[in-house]
């Protein structure tokens, strides 16, 4: 059977590439971590891949604002190619800094528009924080969202976050309504029982506790928490997992690999 090929885009300051690679490999994919300079030299190479991942880190030191420089670089030098892939329906994921990049180049929430209409800003706590949080997918979203990445997940999962600029702010109320209406808000920070969390389980002050969103088509997905850091039960602080062995994060990567496999 044909191997599913994943491209992880690297640049100066990328630092979650190894574990993101490991997560996709666990799900049976073949992964290349490619530096953006290499990709810019050979733009067509990007079309050889089935899945595109923007990993976490501090691209270019997060100077100016988190993810901003890489967002501009991708948009200016690979914008046509990346947008084409997004519109073609291939899975694209942005994790943490990768989410910031997708939002700041405007690939999320609307790759057709391809303009920045929302942002990820400084945490309300005004500091970088690393902790585990609960994420909730609402019933309606669960049933109706087209997101290919979040299928088959328990209603409430836990994942670690590690960021200083994770407060999601949509450009205006209208956009927030659209995101809600289209079931694009796939993850919200939550308490263990699904109720509204206070700080620190709501780690950054995101509008409506937004932790992860997708485009309307459901193939482009960005989130602040790190699913690649919870692919084994052992990685959980209390060693919890499903099947006694795996972490919930793994399902997210498996979903994308399966999606490509069966489409």
């Amino acid at each position, binding site marked *: 059977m044909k191997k599913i090929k994943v491209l992880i885009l690297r640049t100066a300051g990328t630092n979650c590439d190894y574990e993101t690679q490991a997560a996709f490999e666990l799900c049976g994919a073949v992964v290349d971590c490619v530096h953006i300079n290499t990709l810019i030299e050979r733009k067509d190479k990007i079309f050889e891949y089935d899945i595109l991942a923007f990993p976490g880190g501090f691209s270019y030191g997060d100077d100016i604002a988190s993810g901003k420089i890489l967002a501009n670089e991708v948009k200016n030098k690979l914008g046509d190619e990346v947008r084409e892939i997004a519109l073609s329906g291939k899975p694209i994921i942005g994790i943490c800094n990768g989410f910031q990049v997708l939002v700041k180049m405007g690939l999320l929430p609307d790759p057709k528009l391809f303009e920045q209409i929302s942002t990820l800003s400084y945490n309300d706590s005004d500091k970088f924080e690393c902790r585990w949080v609960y994420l909730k997918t609402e019933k309606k979203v669960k049933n109706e969202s087209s997101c290919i990445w979040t299928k088959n997940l328990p209603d409430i999962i836990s994942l*670690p976050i590690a960021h200083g600029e994770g407060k999601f702010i949509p450009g205006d109320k209208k956009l927030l309504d659209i995101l809600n209406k289209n079931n694009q808000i796939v993850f919200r920070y939550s308490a263990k029982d699904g109720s509204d969390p206070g700080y620190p389980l709501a780690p950054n002050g995101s509008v409506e506790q937004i932790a992860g969103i997708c485009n309307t088509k459901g193939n482009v997905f960005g989130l602040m928490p790190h699913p690649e850091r919870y692919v084994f039960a052992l990685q959980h602080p209390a060693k919890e997992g499903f099947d006694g062995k795996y972490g919930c994060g793994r399902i997210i990567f498996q979903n994308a690999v399966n999606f490509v496999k069966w489409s």
Partner: protein
Amino acid sequence: MKSTTNCKIIEILNLSDEQLAELSRKNVLSLSLAEMKAVLDYFKKLKRNPTDVEMETIAQTWSEHCKHKTLTGIIEYTEEEESGKKTKRTYNNLLKETIFKATVELNKEWCLSVFEDNAGVIDFDSKNGVAFKVETHNHPSALEPYGGSATGIGGVIRDILGVGLGAKPLANTDVFCFGDPNTKASKVPEGMHHPKRIAKGVVSGVRDYGNRMGIPTVNGAVCFDEGYMANPLVYCGTMGIIPKNKIEKKVNSGDLILVAGGRTGRDGIHGATFSSVELDTESDVSAVQIGNPIVEKKVLDTMLKARDLNLYRAVTDCGAGGLSSAIGELGEKTGAVVYLDKVPLKYDGLYPWEIWISEAQERMVFAVPPENKKKIVEIFKKENVEAVFVGEFTNDGKLILVYNGDVVTSMDMSFLHGGIPKPTRPAVCKTKEEKVQKPVKMNSSEILEVLKASLADLNVCSKEWIIRQYDHEVQGQTIIKPLQGNSIEVSGPGDAAVVLPYTVVKGTKKGVVLSNGLNPQYGKINTYKMAASAIEESLRNAVAVGADIEKISVLDNFCWGDPNKPEILGSLVRAANACYDMSKAFGVPFISGKDSLNNEYSIGGKKYSIPPALLISAMGVIENVANTVTMPLKNKGNKIFVLGITRNEFGGSVLAKIKNIKTGVVPDVYPEESKVLMKKIYQAINKNFVESCHDCSEGGIAIAISEMAFASGKGVNINIDAVEVEIKNPLTVAEILFSESNGRFIVEVKPENEATFMEILNGSVFAEVGYVSDETKIVFESKKTKIMVQEQLEVLLNAWQNTIDW
């Protein structure tokens, strides 16, 4: 050789002794008169005066920071007992006769590289080794806390990149000693930063550098004491993984010298020599380096690629002493010629000597066979890393530096590395008999107050404010985390961290355990016991999560005052002796270490030394990370055991501080007892008979059990009368609860495993003292004395958490 606009001849041939000393002082050379005279003799033979480049090269090569001349020099040591009895011993090389000697005698076959490279390396599996190094960056952090600590962590990461042919960093550790953050502003010495400002700046520096490097900070400690007010201690450590066939480096004559990474600027001039001078209001901030983690991250990414393609034969980092130190070390056996004008600069206007000794950050030096010249530069260039050839390794044993066609340095490597005269220093230690304090009698409510005060004590309280600012999860390999809870909402202080390097070694089950031990309070009374306790604490911490003491190695980091003062040096000798004794007794080898001396500062002309501090950092290999435990209690009904003997030991304890008790015996170490116990605990954990385990240290049993309880949200009932205590010096209930005796653990066991567990422990001292309750409170009870201490977990948790909430 002649004076040019860029290079001056330093007139020394006709100088008197006083003038030589003055020259050393004026130019921050930090060379003693004997050393200046050795320089004079060498240049007399050459029949010329040295250039400024040569003087600076000698000064940094011979600096305490680079040469460790105190620990490797001659020490005439006298130990004087109260009775007046004196014991004398001369050390020709303290390091070789204590710490290193133990390693040689233990001769562990799993030690792959010890005390010779930028880090110590031990065996991980059949293909890989793991390297560990801990460094200090104290003086820079005093002057510029953020930049000082950032470049501290940046520097030790480069040590790991520069071990063998380069290791991949997997985890960072950080340990700090600060002044009291609640010090009144008026009490802060003039010209010094407030301790809280230093603490916040240092934490931010480590955070921003470590996080951007993508290396999780997984283990650490913080100690507050007013003695560190103007001279904080900043220890930064990095652990990395390296293929076994990349551990050796060898420079060949004809290899090209490649400098890759950051550009050279005026930052960090005299960093190596400045670290040997006490701090005062005149200390120069330009001695502090400027860090850029993203440049270093790019170097890391690219150099590991070049390593795997075998494109270079040797590498080392530019740390203290800059290019001078890096190229000097690599070319020691061959000789080297360097064209200083080829070194890429941040800006124009640097003198040749500044280029040569600048400690600008993020630079690595490689020895590249000429045939790989193109390929290696290509790899760096592809990811926008500047890499420039600046010279080559020769075969004449000379160091030749050329600037714009002029030879500005021509010296023998043998003089540079071997010409330093060995100093002889007297050292004295006056030992005092420690006396047991008056019995500490407290009623139930007084005990509760002390419990809460201990939990809130700066040296016991939660360091969550710091820990959460570090990404301790990046790389996804932190299996045992610094903060541990039974659910993600609660957390207690973990004993050690365990890293599973599965992204590098696919499919591995093996983990690397990292822990530390440090207790300067004990050192104020007895540095031998401080060192012994630090070693045991680091081992206990590792064993508490499931490490096998047979596979643990340790690092030493001495931070001391001025070694020219015999009593200060004497206290160091005593600590070094403890290192030898404990290393041998526990069978745990030292694999690397570092010393930072001259931690002194002057206020109003009066000099103050820091309380001596020996940080012991432990690294071990765990066979299967699934067989590890954390410290929160797990389930109601489970039994709680105290392992080890509780002795009447309160010297330097938290209780002594809170109750202002001036007497007391400093906790001693009984390695014969402890080692056997540690082996049994390993056996029990490895066979999954242990639910949770916690090291008993600062604050004693009461603190350890409280922490286990509030980290789980589960209550406990403890019978204090059941704890095994020494008979010689009987303890009160309060003393049993707060004694800081070494060699003790708290362990939780399921009722059905109790019998087997006790069988494993047979022969060691232990006692079942209580059980996990289904309430949310802690109960300590002594029926004998009718004492009953109880408190809600939440109250204790708050006491622990609220001290540092900045």
